[in-house]
């Protein structure tokens, strides 16, 4: 279920916030059970059987982790085998539901793994997110970072926790448990006001910005790409780049906001990424929980097993291709990942040649180059065919006259949203430095307007893009 659906906003969430604090006051155990059941109902409301792979992934990793944490097995020769079993279980789920078509169309002549053909187009929402979350728990257990296995119900709650279940942020053990593996949920006080501000911002960004852009981008990407020119293609690249940013960051605002109301501090997932001055910085500010997951678990492993020649290009690019495929079961996503990997590699090269400069003009030039290059890669992410993606991408660099193929509003919206987004990034830096006392008042005023606009725009909702991952 989407947070911004009417059912969620008017029935599910109010019911939850009426019952949960009451239960928590009288019985922590009941409140936990209620939160778990609510999470599962919220997740499985549309397609109840989606809960099954979720429970399989969570349970198998719990029992594997319990084995790995147990002191008796600290030096067991089976530890690595057990870890591989966890990988296999999670990867099997991903292959069955997400990648079987990609694999069969790439490696098999008949284009189908017959026994899986019925699963076409049925992808349990958020499967990529929760498999990464359960895997991180298992790997941390293997590495000895988790000293004590939490209670099964607490662990299930950690995996199935509804505000972040389907689109992150991907939580780590330390985000949810203390050193004794007790739930932090029981210790933190809810931040009602702050949580509510974040929900208002999230709703506004989703309903008024992302969904409006989505409508325009859909029209643009459905049009005949052979007729488009350089301005159209850049507008489409920027348009989709902004849409996915608004869409995904809105989900994160909502997840953080709802968690604050419950009493859990979950980490931020975005930090105005389009104000970055390099691709490396961009990926430290975009989908932070995924970038850090990939860096800690995947890149570290690949980096240790491959040659480091040419600035560690091979492990870096392999990691990025996998990261691309995580986003979607198509080689276009792999291409998108590869392109981002190349941008990071170019930055590594540049950094090794040119010393860091504090020149404001240079910083702005870096910012512009980073923004344009990152935006251009979104073409591969959004296009529905190789032909479309290649054509649009080539047209980004092919000048054939200045003309506009779409309605004027599209160019105007993309331009305004870009300027607003970049300005907010700068203002945010300024406010952080100044730590202004007026922040609270500003929050109240902005939240009120954000909520008012969201209510007005609520009739036209679209699904979150990251739900499909």
């Amino acid at each position, binding site marked *: 279920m989407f947070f911004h659906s009417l059912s969620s906003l008017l029935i599910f969430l109010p019911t939850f916030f009426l019952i949960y604090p009451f239960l928590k006051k009288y019985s922590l155990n009941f409140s936990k059970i209620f939160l778990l059941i609510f999470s599962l109902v919220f997740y499985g409301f549309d397609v109840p059987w989606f809960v099954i792979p979720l429970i399989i992934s969570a349970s198998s990793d719990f029992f594997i982790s319990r084995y790995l944490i147990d002191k008796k097995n600290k030096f067991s020769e089976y530890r690595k085998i057990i870890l591989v079993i966890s990988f296999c279980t999670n990867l099997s789920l991903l292959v069955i539901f997400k990648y079987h078509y990609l694999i069969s169309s790439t490696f098999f002549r008949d284009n189908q793994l017959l026994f899986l053909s019925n699963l076409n187009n049925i992808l349990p929402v958020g499967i990529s997110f929760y498999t990464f979350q359960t895997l991180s728990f298992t790997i941390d257990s293997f590495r000895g970072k988790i000293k004590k296995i939490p209670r099964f119900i607490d662990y299930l709650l950690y995996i199935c926790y509804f505000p972040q279940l389907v689109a992150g942020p991907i939580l780590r053990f330390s985000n949810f448990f203390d050193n004794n593996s007790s739930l932090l949920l029981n210790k933190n006080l809810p931040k*009602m006001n702050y949580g509510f501000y974040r929900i208002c911002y999230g709703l506004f960004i989703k309903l008024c910005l992302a969904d409006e852009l989505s409508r325009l981008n859909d029209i643009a990407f459905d049009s005949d790409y052979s*007729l*488009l020119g350089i301005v159209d293609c850049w507008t489409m690249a920027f348009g989709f780049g902004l849409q996915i940013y608004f869409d995904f960051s809105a989900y994160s605002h909502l997840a953080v906001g709802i968690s604050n109301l419950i009493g859990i501090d979950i980490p931020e997932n975005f930090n105005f990424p389009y104000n970055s001055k390099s691709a490396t910085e961009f990926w430290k500010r975009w989908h932070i929980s995924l970038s850090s997951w990939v860096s800690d678990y995947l890149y570290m492993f690949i980096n240790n097993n491959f040659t480091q020649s040419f600035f560690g290009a091979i492990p870096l690019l392999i990691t990025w291709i996998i990261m691309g495929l995580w986003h979607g079961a198509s080689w276009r996503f792999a291409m998108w990942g590869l392109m981002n990997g190349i941008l990071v590699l170019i930055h590594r090269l540049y950094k090794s040649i040119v010393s860091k400069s504090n020149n404001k003009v240079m910083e702005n030039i870096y910012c512009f180059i980073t923004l344009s290059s990152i935006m251009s890669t979104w073409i591969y992410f959004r296009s529905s065919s190789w032909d479309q993606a290649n054509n649009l991408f080539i047209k980004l660099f092919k000048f054939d006259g200045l003309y506009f193929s779409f309605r004027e509003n599209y160019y105007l919206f993309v331009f305004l949203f870009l300027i607003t987004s970049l300005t907010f990034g700068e203002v945010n830096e300024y406010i952080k430095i100044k730590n202004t006392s007026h922040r609270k008042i500003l929050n*109240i005023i902005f939240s009120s307007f954000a*909520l008012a606009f969201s209510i*007005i725009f609520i009739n036209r909702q679209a699904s979150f893009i990251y739900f499909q991952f």
Partner: protein
Amino acid sequence: MSKSNFTKNLLIPDFIFIFLFSLLIIFVYDNFEKFFDRNINDGFLKATAISNKKNCRIKDKEFNCLKETLKDIGKNKSVLFFGNSQTGAINNFKIDDKDYIAHLNEEKFFKDNKLIIRSLWMPNASLKEFYVIYKELERCKIIPETLFIPVFLDDTREQSIRDYVNKLENTFCKSKEKTKKEKIIESNVKRLDQKIKTNLSLFKNLQSINTKMRTDLYKFRNYIFGIKPTSIRPIKKASYSENIDALKKILKIRIENNLTTFIYIPPLLYANDLQKIPYSKKNYASFKKEIKYLCKEHYCNFLNLEGSIPNTLWGTKTSTNFIGNNEEIDFMHFTGEGHKVFSKELSIIIKNNLKKY
């Protein structure tokens, strides 16, 4: 629970204050005109929209008039007009004014010949939308013997297909197989959302506030960029090509079924003085040429009706600018008298066509 400096004197937590304040913002916005004694107008038009059993405006969730309008088509000799607001709106409406479809239906000759004359219209209807509708009519075996399609240069700039037009697909008449799209629409959340929307009157009101906000944003844009009705409207390559393709598809289906189709360049204010029209003279000329050629290629009847309505029979509309309430030229909608004149012109064309059979 912490209270901010701002709200602690009010003794209410911030989130309740925010909720109430946001409702107040919506209320003030909705009633702004009343508070500040500004003129209230229905969008921009001084034109009055007509929608009835013979001249139906296709509208969200209102498919009843569509069913009524189409019920006799296919059973008797029939003529169907597709149209935009030019078909369905009368400028500076007077009590006895009728649209041209009504005038045609009142003609004795057509009554005697039991000719069914109907029209379907939507504001800014694009050819892409006409294609979606025609495909559905064909699927439902509602096939008019004669079809009139106006090609407005303005509407070839439209690229999107409205949700309610898309919803028509495979739903207007019974379908054995539900499409994948419909299956998704029927998800539990959508069903519940739909129930909430239909049962809470608040949401009906929100829709009109949303439309008002979009209109204000549109006016604000016009104000900032100095856009007026007389500003030149450029052809948009991609949308133009998609719309023309849609027209070709309709014509192809019509040829396959050996049916008569009229494509016409619709009436335009100042058609006799092309310097004043809101298009580039060159673009407009090549557009007409292209449509004529396309029609020839697809064995349809081409009509240039751009000069059918004298300049005096057009009207004005309220300002499309954020500031100021000046009336502006309306290039799209003519008066009741204009509808009468247009119906006479169409009547001759239809009669000539009937004589062929």
